[in-house]
């Protein structure tokens, strides 16, 4: 079993209302050094199959379903093979 973490972020050109609200809340709590907050998401995949094919398959999964490339960017990390 291989674990893949897909990190999804909003594209730079897209305004992130959640990030703005979180930044303001952090500043209200006294964290005045916070200049910008962008909120994304982490998608954890556990996969069967050969390690060689994983990169291409995960890219396809991202582009077909997991990511909306109009508003989101992504990168992924292929993790340690678990349970061996």
């Amino acid at each position, binding site marked *: 079993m291989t674990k893949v973490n897909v990190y999804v972020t909003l594209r730079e050109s897209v305004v992130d*209302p959640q990030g703005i609200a979180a930044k303001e809340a952090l500043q209200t709590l006294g964290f005045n050094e916070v200049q910008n907050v962008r909120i994304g998401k982490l998608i954890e995949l556990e996969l069967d199959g050969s390690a060689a094919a994983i990169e291409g398959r995960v890219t396809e999964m991202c582009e077909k*379903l997991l990511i909306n490339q109009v*508003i989101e960017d992504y990168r992924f990390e292929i993790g340690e093979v678990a349970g061996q």
Partner: protein
Amino acid sequence: MKFAVLTFPGSSCDLDMFHAINDIVKADVECLWHTEVDLSLFDAVLIPTGAAYGDYLRPGALAKSSSVISQLQEFAASGKPVLGVGNGFQILVEAGLLPGAFLMNTSLKFRSGQAKLSVQNAETIFTSEYETGQEITLPFAHAYGNYYVDAETLAQLKDNKRIVFTYVDGNEDGSTDAIAGVLNEQGNVLGMMPLPERAVEAIIGGTDGLPLFQSILKNGSEQHVSQA
């Protein structure tokens, strides 16, 4: 002319759409579960609002795994009318039938109420019973009503008069250029966040949605006559 209302797990306003067409517009209509569909038997497809697949991942995203989507793409390519309202609009965007994407409302809140809209283009099969520049009021209810397109796409939409409805009096959810409804390039797929099927009877909040369905019916029927 026969209408299909597509129902996905989590669609919640399919019966509102059915009622509008069956009882008010008085046209032939059927509600269809998304896996049990033969769209070749229909002349127009309506995708209702709700929260298909629980809005998981992104609103409308998981619906594109349904087998009906490839049929819908063929149906749209054949030039027949497809209307998606609310979550139905989000599904059409995720399925690649309309440009853009949806973000959370800038207020970060679910909002509902009556939206005042301007009809930007009355020369479409969906809006011929309105006048260009006419102001209408339709209900809305959404948390992801913030429609986004990039600058290049926006310019294309404007050049080809594909922005059909815009919000008047504020654009509180933050949509690019106050867009409330857009058309595909061919002009036969319309997505809109306001909900015309909830405005077809004076007793429940107005009739400004009625001309939209009457436009589809009229233009669809004329097409049939001309093909006969």
